[in-house]
């Protein structure tokens, strides 16, 4: 600390020297200097005032920042409080409004001094969270002029959390200035501190230290080691971050693909209008939100929750209608069904475009779903997390339906062997209609989820449908675990490959891998076994 003291002595001398050299006029005290209106004098006065421990420093500087500080042409500084004024020097209210008041103006230099002074005062504020916030803010500033303030704060600080932040800020500040003879061990220590902090900010400082030729060799070496350690950490966290994005994308794919897989499993039919069911689900979410805004604004935060059952029912009903009105006439002709549902998807897209217009609609994310929190070096956005949880709940619910309800039993029976199921008295047409409705309803749920992370437009379905097909092909039908594994594998695989080879190449790579994969496993990862599914 001896060296630090010496250093701060030099700094203080420099500051005072500057004040003497640049002051055009001598002022009685810092209040007079502040009232003078000379920016240079004001900056100096702010620093002196902050360091003085004067109880008036906080209100005066705050008033200056808020443009509530006025000077009278007859001398004196006043703070405006509503309609009244108080004397800045004493803090006493003045009885009559002083004549000739003009507000104190600021320039960038004064603003900088003001911010520094406030940080300095906050560092020794009695409240812990104020000190912590100030110390954290200092880290990004590395302003050498604040070093004495940091040292002072460190000497009086007791709280370990604040101390850590102060040490980090000090390290960043020390490394931010040019190396001084004899300060080598201090700098080395600072390098180690920063390497432990990590993050892009620390990496930037360390990288410039490592590249500076004036720096001592062992400091440079330590800095470059720190840079590579930070890089490794950042890379690791970015892999986790991408894995998280992949999980959330995989969740959307899972929601979209389970419906496809169910209809394909039960009926051998690929519903090309499945993406449009998602789109309708998203538009339903929008309509529910608009309706609630118009009728019951206090329910608006939970409109997304209300949209879930509505979207399921709307899309499910449309699905049943499609099955009864179209699919059943194409029974046993799966390829024709594919074409017919494609035609249907064109009609639905155009219908939505005619009704709602071709532009994107804004589905608002409620406050409790927006924002994010940091988990280690990851940034977890709440809406993506919610989609992940939602997909898990839907999958669990679907498992229950398939395993514990008569309808689920019948659907599984029809999937395994349609003719045998019919012979056992299962009304297969009814199962078909309900399975198709269930699939469409699930697509509607996917639409609700997508409305939170993507644009709601008539083309919404198109952007997810091919990936969903890939999930079905990859995972096989008739087994939800297969769909789950495939959705997560495709979602995560794509996002993890993205940073290295780019988004488009990642997509192509995934498509090619799936195409190659089903050469070996033509019925997906978890094929339904049995005589009923002979190809």
């Amino acid at each position: 600390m001896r060296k630090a003291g010496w250093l701060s002595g030099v700094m203080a001398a420099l500051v005072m020297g500057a004040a003497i050299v640049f002051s055009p006029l001598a002022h009685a005290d810092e209040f007079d200097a502040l009232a003078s209106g000379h920016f240079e004098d004001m900056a100096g006065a702010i620093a002196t005032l902050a360091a003085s421990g004067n109880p008036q420093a906080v209100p005066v500087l705050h008033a200056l920042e808020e443009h509530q500080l006025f000077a009278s042409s007859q001398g004196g500084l006043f703070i405006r409080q509503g309609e009244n004024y108080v004397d800045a020097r004493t803090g006493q209210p003045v009885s009559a409004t002083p004549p000739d008041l003009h507000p104190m103006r600021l320039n960038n230099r004064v603003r900088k001094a003001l911010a520094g002074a406030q940080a300095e005062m906050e560092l020794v504020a009695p409240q812990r969270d104020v000190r912590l916030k100030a110390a954290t803010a200092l880290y990004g500033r590395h302003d050498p002029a604040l070093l004495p303030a940091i040292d002072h704060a460190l000497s009086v600080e007791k709280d370990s959390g604040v101390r850590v932040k102060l040490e980090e800020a000090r390290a960043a500040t020390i490394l931010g200035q040019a190396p001084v003879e004899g300060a080598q061990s201090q700098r080395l220590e600072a390098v180690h501190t920063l390497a432990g902090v990590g993050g892009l900010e620390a990496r930037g400082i360390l990288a410039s230290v490592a590249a500076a030729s004036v720096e001592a060799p062992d400091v440079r070496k330590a800095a470059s080691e720190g840079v590579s350690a930070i890089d490794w950490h950042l890379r690791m966290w970015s892999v986790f971050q991408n894995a998280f994005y992949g999980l959330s994308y995989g969740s959307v794919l899972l929601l979209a693909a389970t419906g496809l897989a169910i209809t394909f499993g039960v009926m051998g039919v690929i519903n090309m209008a499945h993406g449009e069911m998602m789109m309708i689900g998203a538009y339903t979410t929008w309509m529910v939100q608009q309706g609630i805004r118009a009728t019951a604004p206090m329910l608006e935060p939970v409109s997304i929750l209300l949209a879930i059952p509505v979207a399921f029912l709307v899309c499910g009903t449309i699905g049943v209608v499609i099955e009864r009105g179209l699919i059943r006439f194409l029974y046993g002709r799966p390829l024709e069904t594919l074409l017919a549902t494609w035609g249907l998807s064109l009609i639905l897209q155009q219908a939505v475009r005619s009704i709602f217009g071709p532009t994107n609609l804004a589905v608002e994310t409620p406050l409790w779903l927006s924002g994010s929190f940091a988990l280690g070096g990851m940034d977890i956005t709440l809406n993506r997390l919610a989609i992940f949880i939602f997909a898990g709940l839907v999958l669990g619910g679907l498992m229950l339906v398939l395993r514990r309800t008569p309808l689920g039993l019948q659907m599984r029976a029809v999937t395994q062997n349609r003719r045998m199921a019919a012979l056992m008295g299962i009304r297969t047409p009814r199962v078909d209609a309900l399975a198709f409705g269930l699939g469409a309803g699930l697509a509607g749920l996917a639409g609700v989820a997508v409305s939170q992370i993507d644009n709601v437009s008539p083309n919404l379905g198109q952007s997810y449908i091919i990936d969903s097909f890939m999930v079905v092909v990859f995972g096989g039908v008739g087994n939800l675990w297969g769909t789950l594994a495939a959705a997560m594998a495709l979602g995560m695989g794509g996002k993890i490959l993205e940073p290295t080879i780019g988004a488009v190449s990642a997509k192509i790579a995934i498509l090619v891998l799936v195409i190659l994969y089903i050469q070996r496993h033509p019925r997906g990862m978890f094929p339904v076994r049995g005589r009923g599914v002979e190809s």
Partner: protein
Amino acid sequence: MNLLSKPGARSFPGAVRMAAVVVVVAIVLAGASMLPESNPLHVSAFVVSLAGKYLAYAMLALSVDLVWGFAGILTLGHAAFFALGGYAMGMYLMREIGARGVYGNPNLPDFMIFLSWKSLPWYWWGTDHFAWAMLLVLVIPAALAGVFGWLAFRSRVSGVYLSIITQALTYALMLGFFQNGLGFGGNNGLTDFKDILGADLHTPTTRAVLLVVTGVMLALALLISRFVVGGRFGNLLVAVRDAESRTRFLGYRPDQVKLLVWVFSAMIAAVGGALYVTQVGIINPGEFAPANSIESVIWVAVGGRGTLAGAVLGAVLVNLGKTLFTAWLPEFWLYGLGLLFLVTTLFLPNGLMGLWRPMKKAAPEEVTPEVSDTQGDEA
């Protein structure tokens, strides 16, 4: 299995007639476009290039009919071969521009200079020679079809699964060609063509000649296809389509049969794509869009699958409808197209040719659209 031993059991007279009609129409239109503008029979350049476009699409439809109508493979990615053929032709046309481009570089096409490339990528070598480019038109799509088909048919990927991965194939190609780094002009594709074999692409004469060439190529494709599917091989194809397992048990190799027709079909599509680019004047990654492939399937469905002539008829009629519709009622075209899909699959399983045929002769169900791949338990 008497059918298999009788060559030429089905002769497709419609295909021959359609080939003749196509050539005559192409020649008449081309001739009419050469008349002076004051002549009431004059046909504008717009109509000529439109007709050329339709005929090129008809080649794509014919290629889809070959695999879907005869081998039962519902391809949702055939536009990929069409577009690849188009890109090969586009490469030649780009090189023909030579030093007349915006940047005036005799070796590099404009977009490469724009991307500040220093030299021609190796796969562009030799594309300034017409013959080499034409070889690429045929070989590249055939090679892709060969590899893809070999992998798919060998492991008996069929039915809806196969349809979906053909769609994934063309989707992957579309994404790839959108990238600037691939060296095919990225988003904008290849365009601004000046001439072909030294003839200015924008003169009425060149356009007329190109229309006739397209007509002749389409007629040739029709005749060759008729030869291929009319004989024993055609019978084998239909056998594979209608009862693949049974055909295999009889000692045939369905995978090889399918692969052959698949590659042949890809080459027809590629030639169509190459001719398309000369007349439309641009090729971009949008041609790979899965929607295009699916649309070409509906042309075949409208005309009547498994009839050869029906594919040509369907392609021309649907595209004519599209041109008229999008000019008059642009919002309603997608409704029309969607309804077309629904109506043909529900009510016209044999397409327009199916409507016409029962009147001519009481045809047996020789071309039933019964495909029982994924419903094996019901077959």
